[in-house]
């Protein structure tokens, strides 16, 4: 691993910083405004891709932008882990924007410029989190995401929207102020720096001396971090996510399946792997409790999902459950498990965005939210429900869709560690996943229309919506067939 000072890593940040401003300036002309989003997403994805050759060779580009205090800097770095998230967020932004156009215009939503502006800022935050080279930078962008996604959650500005958004703010801002801030300060006090130990996932930022002198303080720091990163939706700090479903569906799709929640699990992964290191995790006995909490979240959230009839609520609890796959893998600290967890960041993103896109397309086409009412709808919207089915298979973990690959690694990791309980949790969740996804598909294609629903008038949503969702479902399959696409970067990230 070599670290090189280079401004190249700054480009994605600069573009995503300018994009929201451009959206504001072009707000009057909606085609131009949405074009700006698409161009910015494309440019960002390209500039991130330009980093790929170096990342694959194990070269880390690093750039320090602001020096605030000794050890407290705004700095960016691109390694394998950061690369994946930094690529996914703007890449999916392109499709989400296309989808947005169909969704927002069909429903004639208000305050669209504000909406696109906040959307762009959220992507800026996600890219910043992905490329953060130290805890402070991560914290900075993590908070930017929290603040600027509030208007998106409260977008409808009705009673329900404000309640959901309030909960969103209380959970995210409350945990970050109450736990994440002291965690960061304790890290600074104990480690004397906030810089991640990039390129080394075994030993984190804390020296052996500090760990042996103050083991309990290091443990406290860890607990504060895990509690503070509520965006990862680990129980008991998961409740904001179902409440955030009051937002328009594209927001739920890109932000609450990709950018925001992935910023959460990404941060947890970053803190565990580059902050504490796998060896510290094991030696301080932090690994298993985290994995058990994640396992509990997986099963409990799946059980709740079973009871939900609202399609977005079911997807939200599915997200809570799937996010913990990442955490379980990373926390187990075994090579296979970590790889499985990190792969799932990418794989889940493509599959879950497809599911949300599907839910939104159904809503635009039929104004239906209740799963019970969707009987027979698949025959009217074959493309949407076909993509939805493929993405469901990924959630369940069936080959050849990408969810299978990450689950394979995770199960392998659990077996390596001899953790039967975790293994049972993973397998149980597979059955539960099937339990709440298969009925949707089954109803849509094989059951007669529900009483009072006339299918005649329904057809596929606008093309700007259908194309993105079919595309992302195909990417899910591609990633299942060629898992090395992301795996190469994960191998470059840590020495497994």
């Amino acid at each position, binding site marked *: 691993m070599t670290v090189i000072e280079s401004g190249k890593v700054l480009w994605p940040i600069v573009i995503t910083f300018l994009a929201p401003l451009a959206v504001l300036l072009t707000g009057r002309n909606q085609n131009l405004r949405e074009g700006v989003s698409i161009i910015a997403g494309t440019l960002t994805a390209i500039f991130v891709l330009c980093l790929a050759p170096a990342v694959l060779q194990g070269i880390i580009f690093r750039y320090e932008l602001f*020096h605030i205090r000794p050890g407290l800097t705004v700095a960016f770095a691109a390694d394998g882990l950061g690369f994946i998230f930094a690529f996914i967020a703007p890449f999916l932004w392109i499709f989400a924007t296309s989808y947005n156009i169909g969704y927002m215009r069909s429903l004639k939503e208000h305050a669209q410029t504000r909406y696109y502006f906040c959307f762009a800022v959220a992507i800026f935050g996600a890219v910043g989190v992905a490329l953060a080279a130290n805890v402070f930078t991560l914290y900075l962008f993590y908070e930017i995401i929290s603040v600027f996604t509030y208007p998106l959650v409260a977008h409808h500005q009705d009673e329900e929207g404000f309640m959901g958004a309030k909960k969103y703010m209380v959970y995210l801002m409350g945990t970050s*102020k109450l736990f994440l801030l002291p965690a960061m300060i304790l890290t600074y*006090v104990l480690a004397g720096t906030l810089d991640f130990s990039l390129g080394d996932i075994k030993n984190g930022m804390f020296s052996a001396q500090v760990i042996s002198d103050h083991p309990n*303080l290091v443990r406290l720091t860890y607990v504060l971090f895990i509690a503070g990163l509520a965006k990862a939706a680990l129980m008991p700090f998961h409740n904001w996510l179902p409440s955030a479903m009051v937002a328009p569906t594209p927001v739920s799709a890109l932000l609450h399946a990709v950018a925001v929640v992935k910023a959460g699990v990404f941060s947890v992964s970053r803190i565990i792997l580059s902050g504490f290191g796998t060896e510290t995790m094991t030696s301080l006995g932090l690994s298993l409790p985290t994995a058990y909490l994640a396992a509990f979240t997986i099963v409990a959230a799946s059980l709740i999902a079973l009871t939900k009839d609202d399609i977005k609520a079911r997807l939200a609890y599915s997200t809570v459950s799937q996010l913990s796959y990442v955490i379980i893998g990373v926390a187990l600290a075994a090579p296979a498990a970590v790889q499985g967890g990190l792969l799932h960041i990418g794989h889940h993103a493509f599959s879950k965005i497809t599911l949300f896109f599907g839910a939104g397309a159904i809503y635009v086409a039929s104004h239906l939210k209740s799963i019970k009412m969707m009987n027979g709808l698949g025959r009217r919207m074959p493309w949407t429900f076909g993509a939805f089915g493929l993405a469901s298979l990924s959630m369940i973990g069936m080959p050849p869709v990408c969810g299978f690959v990450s689950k394979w690694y995770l199960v392998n990791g659990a077996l390596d560690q001899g953790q039967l309980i975790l293994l049972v949790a993973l397998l149980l969740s597979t059955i539960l996943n099937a339990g709440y996804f298969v009925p949707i598909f089954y109803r849509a294609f094989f059951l007669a229309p529900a009483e009072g629903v006339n299918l005649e008038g329904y057809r596929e949503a606008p093309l700007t919506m259908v194309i993105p969702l079919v595309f992302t479902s195909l990417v899910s399959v591609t990633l299942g067939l060629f898992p090395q696409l992301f795996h190469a970067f994960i191998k470059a990230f840590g020495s497994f």
Partner: protein
Amino acid sequence: MITDLLSCYPLLTVLTFWPLLAALILSPVKNERTIRLVTMAAALIELVLAIPLLGFESRAGFQFEELIAWAPEWKLNYHLGVDGLSILMIWLSILTLPMCVLCSWTYIGRRVKEFHICLLLMTMACVGVFSALDTVLFYVFWEALLIPMYLMIAIWGSDDRRYASIKFFLYTLAGSTLLLVAIVALRITGGTFSIPELMTTEFSYGFQYWIFLAFFIAFAIKVPMFPFHTWLPAAHVQAPSAGSVILAAVLLKMGTYGFLRFSIPMAPVASTDFAPMMIAISVASILYGGAVALGQQDIKKLIAYSSVAHMGFVTLGIFLFSLDGVNGAIFQMLNHGIITGALFMMVGAVYERSHSREIVKNMGLGKYLPAFMFFWGLFGLASFGFPGTNGFVGEFMVILAAFRANTTLGLLVIPGALLSAAYILKVTLKMAWGQPASPASGGSWRDLKKKEWAYLALPAVLVVWLGLAPGGVLGLIEPSVEDTLKTFHQRNGRVDLVQVTSPAGRPEGLIIEENILPEPTVTTTEPAAAEPAETEMEK
């Protein structure tokens, strides 16, 4: 040539007395608009006159010193000077003046001349307080500030102004009486009025004990620390915008500056002994101020209580006696001045539109006043320490120092940080999003005018600049802080009257060698803490 000219330019005298001269120039002017323009010009000239102050060197000790015998038979001197502890406060006082003039342009409609004379006199007193190096001179300026401030609340205040102004006057007067007692006692025991001399004099423990208490009451009222804070919300709510701005930006800082200039150097051992109490009161201020702010329905009152909490961070930082703590405290003094000053100006701006300071009467502004909400959001974020703003840096340094001193103490302060986020977000979200009380009136309000842009732009730039690159400003204060603390710790080790093996103010806790000041022992000569500061300066 230029340096020769500069060396005989009495910078601090000019900065102090130019506003007084301007007030004299103003007195025959009749036309209201001319009065405003003349004051504005005077404020800008003051800024121009202050340019040599940029030459302030990053080193310990007083600079731009002026010493003239005043009444030799009483050893009274006219003695001015600045060091790292005061330089930022002088800048703050000078920068506040033009903003106050601008934000009063339409706000103040009667007795315009008297109002602007009050403003100028206050600026004179503020600069004087922070540059005086003679206790009597200091006291003169300290008291001189009281009257114009009293008048400002009593004449241009809101409905309840009589009550608020008298409360303000009585509280601060009670404090200054004790300050006078302390100054006289120092003269009798120490034999001088000179602050630099007093700072190097070692007093007996008993004397330090009493002097500390006298200073404590005087400064704690001014800061204000819980439970001496009750005058503040009343004064803030009733005062006109400009009054609130000066009150928040400069007057409160006089208290914390007093702790740094008097209590710590002149009563070091007593400071150490009283530190647990000071820390406890600071934490109480942080939590109490935050909790009460959360319950306010009046925007101005909310900001006023948030001041109590923020100043709690400052006093906490000071009484941790560590480099990070005191640096952070001074930096937080500057931040609070900028942020809270700006917020008060914005409350004034919204009051001019809605004629109410109630949150419920000012809801849903996001739609009609987007630029206003942008600035409000920015200062709000800075106020609760959003990363990337100056508020974060100061708060971070103080909390860091708290954690270094004692993990439990650090964890105790954290709810304060949460509370500040809670009340600011509460008021901001309501103002931006809530359902307007009367949509029709909201629709007719105009967004920010040019003058409003002018007085909000500077603080906005400072918020971001100091948040991302505070190195230059911190570099100015660090050497002086280091020097003060070095003397402080040495003196604590030397005084034999008390046991100093384990000073109460430095609780046993986590100590990381390379980042903490040396333990107070006589043998220490080269403090380890000097290193990070030096590298900081090189950059």
